[in-house]
């Protein structure tokens, strides 16, 4: 058991290191200095209190998106719809944020609750279709992403603005930002959402590992038929899992809407946070604590990469390749696992 756990930790670490090394080779071959490149990356992510603030801001939605993917995954479901659930959550949070002005203690939780409810609804539909009609959740969630994108664009245009491309700014009473955090990080967009996302991670861990419901959810993930035989309501658990997954994703959207942007604008395409959440969940081993670490890595890569073109002259396109390589090795951790077991067998 302990050796198994060691492998679980080693595999993602190897994956990241391999990605960094291959990324360095790509930079070398293309004629750029990998050490300068990576030092720029590191500086751009943690080099100064402003950058640390920006990195934490980016980590916040990643944690929640990762939790959303992982939660469904533990019940044996692939929630590809985190992106769409995030978008509707974002929209709902901002809608509540601009619609009325209330005391902060009511307004802020209400806006987050609205986002969670919207995400839950967007998760419920594929969950229900899966449980009732056995429609595969991957297809439904992918389609729901597009519905979310275009419906929210239409709402922003016609309801939240007068044919404009963005909503009004939310009232300060619904905002997650604070002057204290801004002064701490020299006006970064850091907001209190990070605390919410850490709480969410604890909630997920507790729910899955320490409650009967969590036990049932995991059991359905391991073996539906055995769970059914044991007297569990498999369909109910499928729906529940998608709904909770949607709640996490919706709250991730609230982080963007109430913290980072404080408004919502018409999107030409997906934000990518939901899809990156899949990689975060994979790298984090679908475990709450692992996801936090993975989200930190992804947030640092994303924010730090912005520094590479200016400080190390690495072109933006190459930065994308290097980041993609790291993700590639993370996603192919199965290969690394295979190599490790092979080594183990040879050792015996």
């Amino acid at each position, binding site marked *: 058991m302990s050796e198994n756990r060691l492998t679980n930790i080693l595999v993602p670490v190897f994956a990241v*290191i391999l990605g*960094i090394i291959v990324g360095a080779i790509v930079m070398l071959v293309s004629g750029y200095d990998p050490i300068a490149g990576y030092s720029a990356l590191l500086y751009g992510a943690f*080099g100064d209190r402003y950058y640390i603030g920006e990195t934490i801001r980016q980590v916040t939605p990643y944690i929640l998106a990762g939790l959303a993917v992982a939660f469904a995954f533990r019940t044996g479901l692939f929630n590809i719809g985190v992106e769409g659930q995030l978008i509707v959550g974002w929209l709902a949070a901002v809608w509540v944020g601009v619609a009325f002005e209330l005391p902060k203690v009511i307004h802020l939780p209400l806006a987050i609750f609205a986002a969670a409810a919207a995400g839950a609804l967007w998760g419920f539909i594929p969950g229900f279709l899966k449980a009732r009609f056995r429609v595969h959740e991957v297809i439904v969630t992918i389609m729901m992403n597009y519905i979310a994108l275009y419906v929210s664009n239409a709402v922003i245009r016609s309801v939240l603005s007068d044919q404009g491309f963005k909503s009004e700014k939310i009232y300060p009473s619904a905002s997650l930002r604070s002057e204290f955090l801004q002064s701490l990080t020299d006006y970064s967009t850091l907001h209190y959402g990070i605390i919410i996302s850490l709480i969410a991670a604890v909630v997920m861990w507790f729910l899955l590992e320490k409650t009967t419901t969590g036990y049932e959810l995991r059991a359905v993930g391991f073996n539906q038929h055995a769970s059914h035989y044991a007297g569990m309501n498999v369909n109910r658990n499928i729906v529940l899992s998608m709904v909770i997954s949607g709640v996490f994703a919706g709250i991730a959207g609230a982080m963007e809407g109430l913290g980072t942007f404080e408004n919502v604008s018409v999107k*030409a395409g997906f934000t990518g946070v939901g899809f990156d959440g899949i990689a975060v969940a994979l790298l984090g081993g679908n475990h709450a604590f692992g996801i936090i670490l993975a989200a930190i890595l992804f947030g640092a890569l994303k924010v730090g990469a912005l520094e590479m073109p200016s400080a190390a002259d690495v072109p933006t396109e190459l930065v994308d390749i290097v980041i993609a390589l790291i993700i590639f090795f993370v996603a192919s951790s199965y290969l690394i696992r295979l190599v490790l077991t092979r080594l183990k067998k040879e050792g015996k």
Partner: protein
Amino acid sequence: MKKKRFGLSMSLLLTAGLILGGCGQQGQEEPKTDEGKVSEFSVAMVTDMGGIDDKSFNQSAWEGLQKFGEENGLKKGKGGYDYLQSKGDADYATNLNKLVRNDFDLIFGIGYLMTDAITEIAEQKPDNKFAIVDSVVEKPNVASITFKEHEGSFLVGVVAGLMTKTNKIGFVGGVELPLIEKFESGFIAGVKAVNPNATVTVQYAGAFDKADKGKAIASSMYASGVDIIYHAAGGTGNGVFSEAIDLKKQDPNKEIWVIGVDRDQYEEGKVPGTDKSVTLTSMVKRVDVAVYDLATKTKNGNFPGGQAVEYGLKEDGVGIAPTSKNNVPEDVLKQVDEWKQKIINGEVKVPTTRAELK
């Protein structure tokens, strides 16, 4: 066995440690290098997702900045001239702040999407100088650059009005924003000024990056007898070009034209295998001129903070492309010049909205 694996992981960890250790030192050295250049003037810009090769205003802005940099003997990079490309909406603020932290004297945000980010950062950093293109930010340390797109559109409208054979003209817009309405209103006014019998069909694609939609709209317009289409639709407009080129390939004698936007789009309209282009003319918007001007003014200590500078025909900020003479006869160009003078003199006032048009 366990030992072997442990050894492997340890050595990898150590390698990582070495790499990362190297990084740390490098990072500390960096600030020293730009300390020596404090006195020089430096300028940088943040692009939106289009990047500096978008064949539109980002590219144009970067060309202006490069010209400024070269003429003043600046180097690309910190302490000289530089750009940062945004990969998403969340990057605007980070990129702008990054330039502030690298001590650039003047920082441009290219495009109306950056309005919010500049407004916020200008408030937080009152000692830095900012500029925004295509939008107005009312802050003492922000210079706003906008263009009189309606004036340039009026001129290409004149060309279209005089050149149409079917008296049917099309306008394809990207997203229905006040900005694009300026193009539409000016264009229609130009057409009507010289050819009151012509009708202008207006259609919006709903996006700036959907070439397929542009192609579909162009296809139905040309089929209904429209012979000239003016597009103000960015990447969506590329579909208008490809439809016109396709039609021209099927029937080289068909008289159909496209009017380009933002930059000279003569090359975009080239029909493969011939030396002809379907681009009748282009409404150019000299973002490069505006960026260059503002950088020069700021360098000389005349930063127009808090002001909104509007570039029109008078300032050579908008106009028709020089390649127009390839497809437009001289007498038409002469008339365009006359209208241009009238606008500059103030004899003709070009509408900016549909309401003003009526």
